[in-house]
């Protein structure tokens, strides 16, 4: 079987894969990094979003071999080494932007990509950007709030607690 090598959260990672092995499978099964979740098989739910060379990618829709040499970032690498949550993670906790937690890794990774390209998104822009990330628990209310709060906006004035 072919060998694939990449950088995951700043550390070198490699393993043997089949040609059909998905990046999400490589992360979860080969590397044992189970923070990236798989919630569908049609690229709809977004639980598997990771960053590949800085871009948000649905890792269930990319072959592991396509990530050869790439710089991959996953949910496991978002907090500081001492466990301190980053601004988006902290906002999700503060604003109760997660319940069962299954969609959360993808939501956090998508939010990070959004705020990189649009540091102060409007409510409509956040909702539009998240249309590729499904959540069944929150009705999206607190996810949208959390992302706007992480961008430094006063969400108390935007939506009631």
């Amino acid at each position, binding site marked *: 079987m072919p060998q694939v090598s990449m950088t995951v959260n700043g550390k070198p990672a490699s393993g043997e894969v089949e040609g059909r092995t998905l990046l999400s499978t490589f992360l979860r099964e080969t590397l044992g990094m189970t923070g990236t*979740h798989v919630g569908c098989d049609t690229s709809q739910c977004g639980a598997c979003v990771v960053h590949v060379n800085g871009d948000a990618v649905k890792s269930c829709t990319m072959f592991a071999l396509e990530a050869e040499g790439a710089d991959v970032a996953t949910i496991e690498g978002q907090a500081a080494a001492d*466990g301190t949550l980053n601004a988006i993670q902290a906002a999700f906790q503060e604003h109760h932007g997660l319940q069962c937690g299954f969609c959360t890794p993808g939501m956090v990774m998508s939010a990070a990509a959004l705020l990189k390209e649009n540091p102060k998104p409007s409510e409509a822009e956040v*909702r539009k950007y998240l249309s590729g990330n499904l959540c069944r628990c929150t009705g999206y209310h607190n996810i949208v709030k959390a992302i706007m709060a992480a961008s430094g906006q006063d969400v108390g004035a935007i939506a009631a607690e």
Partner: protein
Amino acid sequence: MPADGGIGAATPRREDVRFLTGAGNYTDDINMRGQAYVAFLRSDVAHGKLKKVDTGAAAAMPGVIRIFTGEDFEGVGGIPCGWQVTDRHGEPMQEPPQPVLAQGKVRHIGDRIAAVVAESLEQARNAAEAIVVEIEDLPAVVDMKKALEPDATKVHDDLKNNLCYDWVFGSDDAAIEGAFSKAAHVTTLELVNQRLVANPMEPRVAIGDYASHSDESTLYTTSQNPHMIRLLMGAFVLGIPEHKLRVVAPDVGGGFGTKIFHYAEEAFCTFAAKALHRPVKWTSSRSEAFISDAQGRDHVTKIELALDAENNFIGLRTDTLANMGAYLMTVAPAVPTYLHGTLMAGCYRTPAVQVNVRAVFTNTVPVDAYRGAGRPEATYQLERLIDKAARELGADPIALRRQNFVTEFPYTTPVAVQYDTGNYHGTMDVLEKIADIAGFEKRRKDSEARGKLRGFGINCYIEACGLAPSHLVGQLGGRAGFYESATVRVNATGGLVVMTGSHSHGQGHETSFPQVVADMLGIDPSMIELVHGDTSKIPMGMGTYGSRSLSVGGSAIYRATEKIIAKAKKIAAHLMEASEADVELKDGQFSVAGTDKSVAWGDVTLAAYVPHNYPLEDIEPGLEETAFYDPSNFTYPAGAYACEVEVDPDTGKVEIMSFAAADDFGNIINPMIVDGQVHGGIGQGIGQALLENCVYDETGQLLSASFMDYAMPRADDVPFYAVDHSSQTPCTHNPLGVKGCGEAGAIGSPPAVVNAVVDALQSGGHKVDHIDMPVSPARVWAAMNNA
């Protein structure tokens, strides 16, 4: 807000940190040494005779360990049903068997024909595709009305017909006919509460493991109630005594009802692990989930309301067909009956109410509880009907509801239940404020100026939560107790472990339950750890569904903590050389009233485990107590919801402009979590009202079998919601005064949305009385242009 993290504090959730850092431990994250993988071969026809299942070539493929078929499960129990409904003639419902793997026939798309166990998932899937199956197609029974015709093909050959039961409940015929015969006005509505797919974001997973040295089986599974799975699977399917069977439901990625039930895949993995002496893992794909997770709703109803000349409700009569699908899942028969018919009175003092439900077998995926389970169906019918009545009578829809509200409690309805407390005018008062009803006409004019039709929809709901008084459930055909359990284990150094039979799969129990105990003991919540989801660690518990966790499970924790306090006071009295009756506990400190004597919580817990100075002649060492709490009644959360929509008259597209929810949940432990529960329920309710539809064609093929075809609500389909639970009438019969909040949003929102859409169309001069959900642009446009 209390600053101490006790009852009423919006404490951030402690479980969030692991979920936000990828450290959650969901079932699919578990991998056992030497595990094998399962792929099920599922039927691609809805109904047929199995003529041949040839596994020969497939079994010889690389990596295949063994292929199982129905023959391997002859003599093994079938998947049991946990509730027996008695029909209108006193006869038990028709109850067909559900084999783990198909025997002789397949009865729905996705029915399990064979299971391949292989060294890798890819090998298992490859071999499953290579199994040669011959099926003699039989006519598929899909439509419920056709299924009940005398010459309809039978889903189950051994049953008399496709009728599971014909159930009548509530007022007798004389009372109901009397009401309708003297009515000044009768409003009638026929409607469909469409089939939905629960779709928790985590697909189901099962891992069976077997230890031959101890003859112990372990099942890791995505369940809302691990003990119930242990009982059902151990006692009824596989014949494994409970002490040799452990069921673990670790982090579970949402349930919404569909993870209550005991599924064949769980039994298969447990069975195969023992047969093969290897761990066996099955992970559902989303496509597989659409054809194997129990689905929800699917009622067709005719409902009639009789009013007198003063617009008082005097009679209500319903006739419902409820789809069971091909097999009876765990609580399926109870959903259209005791979780639906008993709520048909709603918030209103209608003196005569009669409910008829016929449950029907069809060649479709089985149907069971989905968030709200029967109560959304009841609310939807009633509240759509009242809106129609108001329009026919020229009455204000809010005034008509207010006029008929129950206002005196306790109130026993004609459909058996007794509302212990409530204040329906109170929640309506809150709603009128937060929905800014006074400003609606101006907003309507603004919309019209932009070429849009604006509508306002109201809805009042009541639900029965806190399942359930066991003696009552037993009388109604439930085959289980519905208490909840808790053990509180205090450690020598003062920390606590609370073991609950409730299961958290998004509800935040790890945060909110310790708030209760911390409040009672006056200690910091960080001293308290919650354990759930593992039958080897927790007392026999009934799990989480029906908004029961806090009202029943929380009450068990309350009772166990009371026992802890009672014993701790005895110890403290001994240490302080005081009378037990004089000992008080406040802020984690025991003191003697009227003196300066005191001992700290930690002094007492240490004494309990190092009993050197201890009343050993009176009490045992240690500090650990268990309580089982069986509620004396259901709880009755209620509320009033309002939705405003804009309809584009050119396309029929509906946009939700605002949504407001005023709920009465009784006392609140963590308002942040309660808000989140309501938000999520509203999101699902809007999904049902506008988007979601599980559709079979006439041959029983599922047309909406992926997220490409089944329209889940997305972030840009919904607005921010205004939620308020300040109108509170605490439950009168549980120690916390709580009612439950998990399902309210999903129950209360669909009628508000549809009422708003009809109101918008009416404002544009379209004489549209009703549109079935989902209120899609095509349906709205058709209604506007045909009416």
